[in-house]
Each structure stands twice: as structure tokens, then as C-alpha cells.
């Protein structure tokens, strides 16, 4: 019987305590941030959108290898011998045309693993977060500045260079072979 009345008393008392808490909060300031009207300043480390400073990119593909979800796609073309592509901001020489640097932010997992291996600090995550779109394909960000014609031209050149190289190598190989044959012949004749 005592327990019965104690329970009733406890129920009423604790309910009143709880109501006291909510009553106090009725008059405390809300913590809501009215988002589109008020925008919080994000800390500079915030990992939101990826950004690539193409002037600094040397096309080493370290970020592409580091990405756990394969959202970066880079294509490079070797620069010509007399061509000077300039230097990055930390003084590294650029030797490759980066003809394609695509990042699919729809796939990105925002881990920032790509940022750390970059030798020139070209790729980084920015606190920019408002890049939602209605179309998933517009989440594919293209950073390379080359036009398709330039790319095909460069690729053509590379192909030709490669062919020339291959031809040269083949010629070299052939020459070596012939020399070998000749030597063998010589040996044969000698032994005869």
C-alpha cells in the first residue's frame, strides 16, 4: 500500500520536474540556423567540394591512385622536347599535358585521401558546399582546360611520336638482328 502511494507521488513529482524542464526551454533561445537566410561560416578545413588548381597539376596521377572510390579520371599527354609548360607554384617542372582531369562529385566520398599525396598541392577540398543539381551528370566536374581539338592534336602528336619511336626501336632491333645474322653468317663462313 505504501508502495502504491509512493508510486503515485513519484509519478506526479517526476512529471512536474520534466514539465519544468520543457517550460524553461519554452523561453530559451532556439539554436536553429535559418539555413538559406543565414549561412554558417565553415572552418577552412571543411571537406566539401574538390577543387583542382590546374596551373599546379603535373599530372602525376597520385590522387587518382589514392582515391578509394575511383572518382578521379586523369589523362595526360607527354609534352614535346622543346615545349615548356612552365612551373608549378612550388617550383616543380611540368612535363605532361593534363588533357583530362574529371572528378565525379557524385561518387566522391569526401575522404580527402587524394589531397595528401599531391606533390604540388594542386588538388584540395574547399568549404564550398552548395553544388547540388537536378542532374547527376552535372556533378562531373571537368578541370582540364584543353579543347577537344587541342587534345586530339596532342594525342595525334603523341601517337606519331610513339610510332616514330616504335619505328626507330624496330629499326634498331632490326639492325641489331641483321648484325647478329651477319655475325652468325661470318661465323658460319669462318667455320667452313
Amino acid at each position, binding site marked *: 500500500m505504501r508502495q502504491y502511494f509512493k*508510486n503515485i507521488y*513519484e*509519478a506526479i*513529482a*517526476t*512529471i512536474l*520536474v*520534466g514539465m*519544468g*524542464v*520543457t517550460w524553461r526551454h519554452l523561453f530559451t533561445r532556439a*539554436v536553429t540556423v535559418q539555413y538559406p537566410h543565414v549561412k554558417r561560416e*565553415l*572552418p577552412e*578545413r*571543411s*571537406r566539401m567540394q574538390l577543387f583542382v588548381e590546374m596551373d599546379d597539376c603535373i599530372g602525376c596521377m597520385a590522387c587518382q591512385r*589514392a*582515391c*578509394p572510390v575511383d572518382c578521379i579520371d586523369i589523362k595526360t599527354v607527354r609534352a614535346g622536347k622543346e615545349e615548356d609548360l612552365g612551373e608549378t607554384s612550388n617550383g616543380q617542372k611540368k612535363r605532361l599535358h593534363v588533357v583530362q582531369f574529371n572528378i565525379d562529385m557524385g561518387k566522391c*566520398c*569526401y*575522404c*580527402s*585521401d587524394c589531397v*595528401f*599525396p599531391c606533390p604540388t598541392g594542386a588538388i584540395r*577540398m574547399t568549404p564550398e558546399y552548395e553544388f547540388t543539381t537536378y542532374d547527376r551528370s552535372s556533378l562531373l566536374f571537368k578541370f582540364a582546360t584543353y579543347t577537344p581539338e587541342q587534345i586530339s592534336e596532342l594525342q595525334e602528336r603523341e601517337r606519331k611520336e610513339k610510332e616514330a619511336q616504335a619505328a626507330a626501336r624496330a629499326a634498331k632491333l632490326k639492325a641489331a638482328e641483321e648484325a647478329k645474322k651477319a655475325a652468325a653468317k661470318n661465323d658460319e663462313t669462318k667455320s667452313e
Partner: protein
Amino acid sequence: MKKSNIPESQFELQVPESLKTEEMTISMGPQHPSTHGVLQVILKTDGEIINSAKPQIGYLHRCFEKHAENITWHQVIPFTDRLDYIASMNNNLGYVIGIERMMNLEVNERAEHLRVVVSELNRIASHLIALGTYGLDIGAFTPFLYVFRDREKILDLFEEISGARLLYNYIWVGGVAYDAPEGWREKVLEFCDYFEPKIKEYNDILTYNKIFIERTANVGVIPAEVGISYGVSGPSLRGSGVNFDLRKDDPYSIYDRFDFNVVVGKGEMGTVGDTWDRYWVRVDEMVESVKIIRQALENLPEGDAKETVPRNIKVPAGEYYMRTETPRGELGFYIISDGSKMPNRVKVRSPAFCNLSVLQAIAPGVMIADLVAIIGSLDIVLGEVDR
């Protein structure tokens, strides 16, 4: 010598034969407000009383273990974030320490301290969610938003130190990804001062509310030996009165240097091991976490936390089972390396997986409303159950 093996359930439902009616089979979930994600429980009920409850999992299976075999050691870390997405820091820590022990790698003091601070902050954040959602399961909506208000402050701190709010990828092999920014230490201390009085508020509105106690005390009792047999760990096991905390019993990182208590359930409101005890262990553990944070920040050495992070990791061939205490319990990573740059096998022993398995043993005989309370008190995260 053969001891009796533990039966399927300790709580046999006792209904006179004449009163038994036809069973009703209900699928609770995968879309249900209080299964904490995509969990399905097949219930067989007799009116409001449950005769059997079989959890069906796998709706959130994302092949973590298969993924891990195909990416480099370092690339696994962002994936560990996504196991238990409410306590990512703790997941990072478990995986990373496992690798460090295999590589025999030393981590500098500052990084160790920062790791402890972020892990404990994350523990608080995770327990806050456990509290809030538990209130929600019982029917109290307001505490849920109070805890989110305070958790937001922790996430702000995390955003400042790691740049992300939920999936941090912060703890790396050999150290941490970033050093703490200027003024971060003071902000954390400020948060500790802010947070401690808030616990009283949660207690006022929820913990000691008579209705809440009536709903949770003496419900879903997990006896200690049943808990151990089912592999229950963490706060759920400590709620059953087992003094077992890996931070004390199998210390990792620098936890052995800190002075804190292991909270165990005492059956204050009912039986030892009931849902109220499990809830209460979480509330009290937040106080202990604040203690640890304060100590760690007090002794935070100067220097650069990043300096020992190696670029490319190759883990020597071998295997290691690393277990750490996450907010949900014993998170184990069983890592096998064949000496290459990718893991050969990463098995996750997820605490929520084991904690959930005890449900089928304690559910028979309770009411539907109690089942919700039990699931809530086990504090499962389906991302970790299904991996």
C-alpha cells in the same frame, strides 16, 4: 563435467493451455520507425505478447570485407568510417591500431592524445544519439532534440579538426590526418564545461521520469552469463553488471594512463541487466568520457601530430586480431596481411552484430512495446550489423 548449455530463452511464457490463441506473425521492419534502420524482426505474437522474435539482417550489406581485399591499406580507413557511422573515430582507431601493432609502429605523444580526445568525444556523441533515440522509442520526443543540439557542438569540433562532420577519416596509420588547429583545445574544454550540466537536464526530463522507469526497468533483462555467451559487449554487457571495458582490461593507445571508472549496471530501478541499466550505463559513461577528455587535454604535449604518418604502407605478413572499445562494444578487426600493399583479409567483428543476436533470447514473453525498448537499449547501428 558438461555444464548445461544455455537454453534459447530463459523466460518461458506461461499461459494456461486453454487461453492460448492463434499466433500472429508480423514483420516488424525493414521499414519501421524504431528498428533503428533497416532491421527486420519477424515476430510471432499472442496478442500483445511476443512468442518469438527473429531478427533478419543484411538489408544494408555493403561488402566491406570484400572491398577491403581490393584496396590499399590506407584506402580502407574511409570505409571503416562507414561501418558505424555514428562513431567513426572509434572505428578508425580500431583498424589503425591493429595495423600499427602489426607494423610495430610508434605514434608520437601528441597524436596519441588527440586520438583519445576525438574518440571520447565521439563516444559522447554516439551515446547522446543512443539516449535520444531511446527516448524516441519510448515515446518521448523532446530529449531527442536536446541531445542533437549538444551533439551538434561535438560535430562542430570535429569539423574544425578533421574537416568532416560525420565520416572523418581522421585517424591514420602512424598518427592523425591533421594537427589540432589553434584554439581547438580551449574549445573542447569549453564544451566539457557546457556539457556536464546538460546531463542533469536529460536526467530530469527522461532518466528519472516515472513513466520512463516503468517502461524500462525490469524489461529485457540480460543475465551476465547469457550476455557473455551471446558475445554482448560494451555498455550492453556492463549494464548486466559485468565489469569489462577494453580500455581497462586490454588497454590500447594510451588509455592505461587515464583515471576513470568503468560504469556497471547495479539494478538501481529494477533488476541488474534490464534496459534501464543499459541506458544508465551510457549516461554515466558520458561523464567518464568527459573526465578522460579533460585529462588528455591537460597533458596534451606540444609538437606536430602528423609527423609519423608514412606515405605508403606495407604491412609485414602476419595476422592480428585488434579489439577496441567503441560506444557499442568490442569492435574487432581481424587483419591478415601477406606483405603486399593490400590486405588479404579484414574481418570485422562488429559489436552491434553480436549485441543484436541476443534479441532472440530475451524477446520471448515481452510485449511489443517492450521489444521496441529492448532494441533501443541495445543501441544497434545497422551499418555495423550488416557491414
